[in-house]
């Protein structure tokens, strides 16, 4: 069992609740034990750092200090935006002693800086593939586009996670459960993030490019690990379709939902019914067809 502190973040209680539900649903089978940080607060996400720098340090610092108080060594932060804020603030505070003391004063708690912040992909990549193999009841045999977005991989010097331009860890996890992953151009492009409400037109433009590329390269689903990416690609689908002048039926799944499906967990437990774009995955006869097709193709070449 991997015991991890758990910081769900505000989205996972509201518009991204299926992310929390699916993570909890797969945690037992994947050997992850979650300990929720008591009385956690919002990290300030995309708003605090635009308005007030000290506030953007203090809010995440309180969360980290609460986790330290519980003697946790690592905390799992599934929301990519929260993960980024917590990790950046941790880095900023441990590299400046004066600042660390000042912020500790503001939050009325002592932040030491000896806790590690990990994202969902890192936690999932630690599961040994032979351990997972026995649990897989329905291999997730679809062609998927793994969409990392901005905040899992950037800034590379601080988050220090995978390759910044062409990351692979999510692809590797998806391959372990049976998926084919595409090589595509929008893996780490921005979806428009926090502009969902204030500049929906920008979100439609940026997210539209992402969906278009994934579809053109043959993806049957887009896999994400961030509530903002999910809501922009799923909830804002009608705005995207209006801008692009065409319909897109490609579903967007959290990586935890895809794993849950492979583990044979019900759609309802994984919260698939909560998506705006219905999760309809094509029926698979693919593996059979391929096996028959390959030898004949070779024969023709000869």
């Amino acid at each position, binding site marked *: 069992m991997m015991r991890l502190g758990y910081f769900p973040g*505000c*989205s996972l*209680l*509201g*518009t991204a*609740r299926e992310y929390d539900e699916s993570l909890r649903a797969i945690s037992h089978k994947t050997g992850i034990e979650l300990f929720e940080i008591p*009385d*956690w*607060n*919002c990290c*300030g*996400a*995309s*708003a*605090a*750092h*635009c*308005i*007030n*720098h*000290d*506030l*953007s340090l*203090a*809010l995440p610092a*309180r969360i980290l200090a609460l986790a330290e108080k519980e003697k946790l060594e690592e905390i799992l932060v599934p929301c990519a935006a929260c993960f980024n804020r917590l990790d950046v603030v941790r880095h900023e505070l441990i590299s400046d002693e004066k600042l660390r003391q000042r912020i500790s004063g*503001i*939050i*009325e708690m002592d932040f030491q800086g000896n806790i590690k912040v990990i994202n969902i992909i890192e936690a999932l990549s630690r599961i040994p593939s032979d351990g997972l193999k026995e649990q897989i009841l329905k291999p997730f045999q679809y062609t998927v586009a793994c969409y990392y977005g*901005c*905040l899992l*991989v*950037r*800034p*590379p*010097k601080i988050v220090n996670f995978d390759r*910044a*331009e062409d990351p692979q860890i999510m692809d590797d996890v998806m391959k372990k459960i049976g998926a084919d992953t595409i090589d595509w151009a929008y893996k*780490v*492009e*921005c979806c*428009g*993030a*926090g*502009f969902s*409400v*204030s*500049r*929906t037109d*920008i979100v439609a433009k*940026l997210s539209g490019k992402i969906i278009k590329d994934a579809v053109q390269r043959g993806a049957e689903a887009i896999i994400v690990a961030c509530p903002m990416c999910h809501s922009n690609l799923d*909830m804002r689908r*009608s705005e995207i379709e209006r801008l692009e002048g065409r319909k897109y039926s490609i579903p967007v799944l959290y990586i935890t939902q895809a794993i849950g499906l492979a583990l044979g967990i019900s759609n309802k437990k994984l919260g698939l*019914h*909560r*998506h*705006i774009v219905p999760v309809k995955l094509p029926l698979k006869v693919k593996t059979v067809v391929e096996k028959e097709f390959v030898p004949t193709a070779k024969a023709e070449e000869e």
Partner: protein
Amino acid sequence: MAGESNHHNGDKTLSVRIYEQVNESVFRCYQCGKCSAGCPLSEDMDYPPSQLMRMLQLETPEVEANILRSYTIWLCLTCETCIARCPQEVDIPKIMDFLRSESLRRKKVHPSAKDIISFHKSFLDSIKYTGRLHEVGLIAGYKFRTYHLLKDLPVAPKLFLRGKLKLFPHFIKGKSVISRIFTKTFREYKGKEAEK
């Protein structure tokens, strides 16, 4: 390098203050343009990121006023593509954060940025009193601030039917600490304004 002489009233230039407060030197930028090439929104900005860096290097009051009044600083999504690709590792997102709060403090905000700022402020208001973000409260606050009353009405019932809208906020036990964090950090913020 960074001269204070260009400013008649003896104020420090933006680039000096960025160096002192954010520990970033804008003079490291040699205008390769990678940030502007990678920025997902440079075509929507009034000045693409590399041009903004050049403007910071010029250090004249007129140009600095244009920087603080630019739409660029508010359009920046902090996607961090620029810093990931910068050969000189200039932390442009951090500089943008500084410029945004400076622009707000000096009340030089670009008129088109109103909605974006209203969203940020409504977001923070929602946390201030409860400790956690309440999405329904955020949207209500945003509509109240911007009068965009009809925006996103069609999507609301869809979210509600899917159980994604929580009507009532959750109050954390430490909500008074959060309120104090807001008071303390904004006191500091206003203190800086008073210094000028």
